């Protein structure tokens, strides 16, 4: 195999060296990735939509402008975009029939950032419909497969993005994380996925699932790429009132500093019965590794953890019930005719939304209804405050918190599809982070034996503590070779 043909296997930082030297062109890189997609995506189904000509046109423009040579960290790098982030002129379906035919009239903030950095926007990756799910099975456009075992799911909801990165169908990808939707698929596909602090990255242009929980973040092949991409995505945006005006550091500067002196908190509530043994063993092994690298381990407690799933499914669904009300057939997307507006709404929404989305809209509507609002929505908000208090106390004793990302490795497609409660429990280790608003990253920390499936380690940091979690993730990654192992495709 020639070098040019292998370009799709490269990381952002590897490509940068070669693009800067002028050894390769952006077009060559883009073509390599497009060839990989053409050869493989029939089996993986990571993409919902792709316009190869458009990607090549972008690549040629970047080559002509020469920006890839002047050291711009992301210049010339093909990036896949989750199908819930608006890119002008492209469809943005959120894997839902209700958005069939909708063409985005504007760029999301993160897309503007990527364009400015000179990235090549690849196609749109599959997801659970409106990001509601943990397996990417709730998609109107088909199920995405885990590159490590095609019978298994890639996790979700950013399953298409994680699978694309793991299968070298993209150099990196954007996902969104409302309750673990970046970290859990990253863990299940063996890549790096980071959920930034709430407010670090603008949500403008991300189709909302649960506004107080959603964040866009990177999915990459290694920690250094994660730091590079996060730096480009981050920043204050006047169009998102919840984005925070805090300076964006050079996250790559945090790498290579080791973990000596860092205190690692281990919450006892996250190592519970029912967890997959191999996964638990891998995570415990990773903690020992961190200790051997000089980190100090602190046992601690997050006492309100058991309420997190319930709180999450009340708040997220309540917000979603309003966020998804705009899909009514009046202005864009699917419209199924009715004799009057109300009938049109019923027909359109009945035909357009899948069962999981309907389930959550009904749940959220119920939680906000007169007579139930105080018992469900208001109580959930109070419990959310208690969970936040748990983390504030915990971070007095430690610099980062380390947990498994998911209780199990990737499960088989269809295994949990009919049992929403089982599915909801796949998120137990990731959702508190969204409720509290802090940051978290998942990195590979081992494999199950038979079949060989990736296991993820979750590192959580304080608000705007991205540098610290990246520093620790990088130190662990450099001391192991999990991230270098690729699926046999």
């Amino acid at each position, binding site marked *: 195999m020639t070098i040019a043909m292998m370009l799709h296997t490269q990381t952002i930082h590897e490509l940068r060296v070669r693009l800067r030297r002028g050894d390769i062109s952006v077009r060559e890189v883009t073509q390599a990735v497009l060839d990989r997609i053409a050869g493989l995506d029939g089996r993986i189904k990571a993409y919902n939509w792709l316009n190869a000509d458009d990607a090549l046109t972008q690549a040629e423009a970047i080559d002509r402008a020469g920006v890839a040579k002047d050291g711009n960290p992301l210049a010339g790098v093909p990036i896949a975009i989750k199908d*819930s*982030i*608006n890119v002008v002129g492209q469809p*943005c379906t*959120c894997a839902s029939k209700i*958005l069939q035919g*909708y063409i*985005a*009239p*504007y760029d*999301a903030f993160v897309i503007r950032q990527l364009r400015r950095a000179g990235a090549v926007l690849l196609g749109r990756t599959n997801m659970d419909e409106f990001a509601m799910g943990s397996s990417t099975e709730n998609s109107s456009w088909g199920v995405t497969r885990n590159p490590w075992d095609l019978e298994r799911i890639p996790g979700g909801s950013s399953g298409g993005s994680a699978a694309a990165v793991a299968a070298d169908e993209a150099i990196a990808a954007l996902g969104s994380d409302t309750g673990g939707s970046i970290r859990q698929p990253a863990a299940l596909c063996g890549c790096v996925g980071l959920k930034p602090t709430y407010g670090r990255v603008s*949500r*403008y*242009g*991300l*189709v*909302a699932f*649960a*506004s*107080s929980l959603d964040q866009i973040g990177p999915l990459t092949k290694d920690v250094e790429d994660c730091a590079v991409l996060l730096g480009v995505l981050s920043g204050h945006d*006047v*169009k*998102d*009132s*919840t984005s925070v005006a805090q300076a964006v550091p050079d996250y790559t500067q945090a790498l290579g500093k080791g973990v000596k002196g860092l205190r690692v908190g281990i919450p006892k509530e996250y190592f519970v019965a029912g967890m997959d043994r191999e996964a638990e063993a891998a995570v415990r092994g990773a903690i020992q590794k961190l200790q051997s690298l000089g980190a100090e381990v602190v046992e601690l407690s997050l006492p309100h953890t058991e309420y997190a799933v319930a709180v999450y499914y009340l708040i997220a669904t*309540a*917000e979603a*019930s*309003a966020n998804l*009300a*705009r*899909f*009514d057939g*009046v*202005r*864009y997307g699917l419209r199924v005719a009715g004799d009057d*507006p*109300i009938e049109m*709404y019923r027909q359109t929404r009945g035909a357009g939304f899948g069962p999981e989305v309907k389930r959550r809209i009904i749940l959220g*509507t119920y939680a*906000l*209804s*007169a007579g139930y*609002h105080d018992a469900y*929505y208001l109580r959930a908000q109070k419990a959310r405050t208690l969970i936040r208090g748990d983390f504030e106390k915990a971070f007095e004793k430690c610099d980062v918190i380390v947990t498994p990302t998911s209780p199990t490795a990737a499960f088989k497609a269809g295994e949990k599809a009919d049992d929403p409660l089982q599915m909801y429990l796949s998120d137990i280790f990731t959702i508190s982070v969204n409720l509290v608003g802090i940051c978290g990253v998942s990195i590979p920390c081992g494999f199950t034996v038979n079949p060989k499936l990736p296991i993820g380690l979750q590192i959580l940091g304080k608000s705007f503590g991205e540098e610290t979690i990246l520093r620790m993730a990088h130190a662990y990654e450099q001391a192991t070779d999990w991230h270098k192992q690729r699926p046999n495709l």
Partner: protein
Amino acid sequence: MQYETIIGLEVHVQVKTASKMFCGCAVAFGAPPNTQVCPVCLGYPGSLPVMNEEAVRKTILAGLMLGCDITQLSKWDRKNYFYPDMPKNYQISQYDLPLCRGGGMDIKLDGGETKRIRLTRIHLEEDVAKNFHFETTSGVDFNRAGLPLMEIVSEPDIHSPDEAFAYLTALKEILVSGGVSDCDMEKGQLRCDCNVSIRPIGQKELGAKVEIKNMNMISGVRRALAYEIPRQIAALEKGEKISQETRRWDDAPGITSVMRVKEYAHDYRYFPEPDLVPVVVTDNMLAEIRKLLPELPEARRHRFMQQYGLPEYDAGVLVADMALAAYYEQAAGQSKNPKAISNWVMTELLGKLAEAKQTITHCPVAPLQLAELVALVDGGQISGKIGKEVFVEMFASGKSPSLIVKEKGLMQVSDTAAIEVFVDEAIAKNPQSVADFKAGNQVAINFLKGYVMKLSQGKVNPRLVGEILLSKLRGS
């Protein structure tokens, strides 16, 4: 049987801002449909609202003018309901922490006494779009969607159509004077829904609440109520039951008719808007807004009466229009005779403006020039009659009165020697009148006076003419 009427008004007022409440779209009345829109006000997926701070400031200003308590930690809520004029099918509004609470205003009743109307609250929200119905289809114009809208809710202190009229008139006057809104009802900048119920006097529980919509003028509100109250009384007298419903006012026939019957209370499922942060009104911000507080019309009326010695009628006319009041103050401030200024403004100036279909802001006569004119009349340089001619010329040419008087040689003659020449000629030419006067007919002198005025083309001082005539007739 005697009945008591209870009226509550929900007034929606478009706050005067350059852009919409939560996006940068321009506020432009009468633009072609769906031209003042963007992903945010169209409710496109992924778009987010950003608060218009100017709208918040103006709402606080309205609250301060109306004596409300300002909520220093306020927030936004989503009000959920499905309707084609709602881009997101929820409206960003304020539920339990409105910007302004309490307050009220005094209205003047016909008898002259004043009455306090209390306010419940003022909150800020986004306006909805406008639906149009064609023969077989409907359309939605989203230009109006997202305009900043203040909702002012009154306590049920209003008991008659006249009180409702007085309340709305006073409210409009205050909001316009503060620059909060133009309150142009024809442009939909002020919309009013009435809740009206009646009950036999002495009955404790309230009657069924009927909501009336579609009044396009403040006088329409009065007429709608004047129709609706007797209708309800007549129904009760016939033993019918008033049902809780929404009725539509039709202005041309002057009647209300059923729009929809309220079968159940709406559940709007309010919850805090997660896309926006709470509104923090700092002490500094409040102090800044307080500096913008204009004098309220009622207070200005009193000041005009005291400071300029005007009768209540004059003060009322001048204060009703902010620009007119400002014009008057500029002129009166330069004059020793503010009452004369008021007379000139109210009769000559307003008359000319009405004739020319002009507003005071485009008045060709500067306030200082009017003051100068009054000074010329008062100083005897020209007569009042000549003054009116000069004013017509001022209005037409914009020239100063002294220049006009000079150019046209209108200066009043007060030189006794000059006047004596005219008087002598009058006496010489009218022996009969002189004889009549001498015979005791006092009225005959008026003929001689008129003769002098005619000879002088009205330029001589009439008081001096009388004096000189008398002394000459008696002396000779």
